[in-house]
């Protein structure tokens, strides 16, 4: 047990931070908010050269096979720079392909991801906003050696920039996990139409309509109708990596407020000398630390092949509330200037707030934890794993 970063982890963080500080100024972040593509391909290729896309992918496909903890460190730095990259969607889909797809499917997709030629995304949520599998209504019907997909997905990240999308569909009647399949879809396939959403983060989310979209049956990830657990693992990885990204952004946001309080003078002294401001700053850092500890424990458990669903939910429920509180306090410490478009602080405020609304609300993640704690047989013991119960 050692919760401190190893020298190698520190080096990785340092390199990533230096790289993004040089390559991803806030002018670029702002430019991408109005850019139709929404990400800078040149930067994307450079991150591939640094090995980010393939960091946790198998060596067979050109990846580095490093632990998810390392990827967490990268996501934190991406969040810190609020870098407009389709990295989260790409790595989450790629990791799912690496763990659950056939060798042929992996061979077809992963080398391109590692090289930075391919952008991936995934689609789960539909009209019912709850973060649970029963909400999936999109149907995929077998027709010979094809599937025909009909339905609408909402809040899909970078769909228009992506080459492929992993789409959660219902291939058999059922609720919850029953009858779910995860299908790899070419984003340019006939029958697909998209509508961009205007979001708080000014990122590239859209609504995607599938109208008789034909996909080869060979594109199903795992077995037809048995994709529930695959989807759950995918969402868990997505959620915990989003936590890392949120925490990176939140820490940077807090640091800006702390710095600002050292220089902003009121009533004859820096506002940072006032105890009411100091104690808020102390809480901000304690909360961020708490979120990081929860997040990295979840990532570490995944790396060990241990069940980590509860740890993921712990992290997201905590980050949703604490990161939001931190960025709100940071706005408060900045006074009026934080509300001004030309001042950069809102780039972090808007994104962290939006990320807190995605991939499960605090209520939903706590419901999952409560289910495991309360509806499992036997007693619970602190510090030992919570019994695993089937997802609701």
């Amino acid at each position, binding site marked *: 047990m050692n919760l401190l970063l190893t020298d190698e982890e520190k080096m990785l963080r340092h390199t990533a931070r230096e790289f993004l500080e040089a390559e991803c100024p806030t002018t670029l972040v702002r430019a991408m908010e109005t850019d139709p593509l929404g990400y800078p391909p040149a930067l994307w290729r450079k991150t591939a050269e640094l090995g980010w896309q393939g960091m946790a992918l198998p060596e067979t496909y050109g990846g580095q096979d490093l632990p998810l903890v390392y990827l967490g460190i990268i996501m934190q730095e991406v969040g810190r720079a609020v870098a407009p990259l389709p990295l989260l969607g790409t790595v989450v889909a790629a990791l799912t392909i690496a763990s659950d797809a056939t060798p042929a499917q992996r061979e077809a997709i992963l080398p391109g991801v590692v090289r930075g030629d391919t952008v991936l995304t995934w689609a789960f949520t539909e009209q019912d906003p709850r973060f649970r599998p029963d909400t999936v209504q999109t149907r995929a019907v077998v027709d010979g050696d094809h599937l025909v997909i009909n339905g609408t997905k909402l809040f899909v990240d970078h769909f228009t920039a992506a080459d492929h999308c992993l789409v959660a569909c219902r291939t058999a009647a059922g609720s919850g996990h029953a009858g779910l399949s995860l299908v790899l879809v070419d984003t340019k396939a006939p029958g697909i139409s998209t509508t961009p959403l205007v979001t708080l983060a000014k990122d590239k989310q859209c609504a995607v309509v599938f109208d008789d979209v034909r996909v080869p049956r060979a594109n199903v990830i795992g077995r037809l109708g048995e994709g529930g657990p695959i989807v759950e693992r995918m969402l868990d990885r997505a959620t915990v990596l989003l936590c890392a990204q949120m925490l990176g952004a939140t820490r940077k946001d807090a640091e800006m407020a702390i710095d600002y309080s050292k220089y902003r003078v009121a009533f004859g002294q820096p506002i940072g000398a006032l105890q009411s401001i100091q104690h808020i700053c102390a809480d901000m850092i304690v909360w961020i*630390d708490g979120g990081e500890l*929860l997040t990295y424990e979840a990532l570490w458990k995944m790396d060990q092949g241990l069940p980590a669903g509860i740890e993921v939910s712990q992290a997201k429920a905590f980050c949703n509330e604490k990161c939001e509180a931190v960025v709100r306090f940071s706005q408060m410490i900045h006074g009026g200037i934080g509300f001004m478009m030309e001042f950069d602080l809102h780039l972090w405020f808007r994104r962290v707030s939006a990320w807190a609304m995605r991939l499960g609300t605090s209520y939903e993640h706590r419901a*999952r*934890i409560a289910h495991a*704690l309360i509806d499992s047989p036997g007693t619970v013991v602190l510090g030992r794993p919570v019994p695993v119960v089937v997802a609701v």
Partner: protein
Amino acid sequence: MDFGFTPEQEALRREVRDFIAEHLTAEIVEELEGLTEGFGVSRSVGRGPLVSRLFDEIAKRGWLGISYPKEYGGQDGDRITQYIVEEEFARVGIAVGLAGSGAPAILAAGTEEQKRAFIPKLISGEYSFALGFTEPQAGADLASLQCRAVRDGDDYVINGQKMYTSAAHTATHVYLMARTDTAVPKHQGISIFLVPMDTPGLTVRPLWTIQNEPRAPLGTTYGAYRTNETFFDDVRVPKTTLLGKENEGWGVGSMGLNLDRVGAARYLISVRRDEDIVNWVKTNRFDGYSPADDPAIRDKIAELWIEAQVCRLMTMRSMSIVEHGGHFTYEGAAEKIWAPEHGVRTSEAITQMLGPYGQLLNGSPYAVEKGIFAHNLMGAFQSGINHGSVQVMRDQVARRGLGLPSARRAGRPEAGR
């Protein structure tokens, strides 16, 4: 980052757990419940014959003073192993570890003679310290303490009063902070003395807390124990009782206090009720009502559970820092804010879940779990006051951790402790 324990450490944890299951008999629990000392009964303050015998068994297994050098009676083990053993015993109210103020400070600042005289006996439980820091006019602002120690030949003569000297009635020594120079800034005139409790001129008067009548059940945060006022009237001690150099007691004391703020016992007293309430909710029904089905209770329980994990992880982080030879900049203070405040939040939330049952104290008809939740509501708060209050800890995070400036207002205490 590594959140796991080695197979050997896991095996040791199982061994300790099995030992406790086998040895912690109902008779021993009864003996423990009759004691009036702080959280974590150690051998020296255990007194009872069964607890003493239990400690012999613990000592036989090499579970006392694990991380201390062999030459001073320890096991030359690592801090993480010690933490595991401490954690398992802390769950049942037994302290096998040593507080930061005491053995670690002597190891760091003591003379060879002091190390040999104290550490083996602290480990074996023959000696124990009461902490003589707080005074009537010096609490959170500890450095303004007035208790005087004046050099007289080869002796010091001590005069003054200490408040809330817990365990002073059972301890063999008091780990005393006293003023040795009044002419210098307050932090620079303080020294630490290791004073035998049986020194003439030293008297102890009990202070009973709001937990004593009825007695808080075993395991309550700041449960049924007695604290004291301690008076020093011309207490004459040899100069060999001075720990570290004269007037350098603040640094020695801070180091020990930092360690007192972290670790297994402190974290567990703040989170044990989370476990209890989950298990209570799982098993209790009232006519047609099942608290387990109440969505508000379920949401709150999950929230508390998450917070408890943060307490555990912050403790593990502190232990990682200690084990790998680092120093706390703000991490110990962070743990000392988060865990005690969680303890308060959880006590309040749980009593809301229990509604009117939440009021019932130990011994009352219908009391839930011997009234521990009501008692905990009274006691949890104290964890955020002592050993550096949460306000002082926030000052430390802000100023030492984040580099925020000190205010210009006059008479403002520094974030030193």
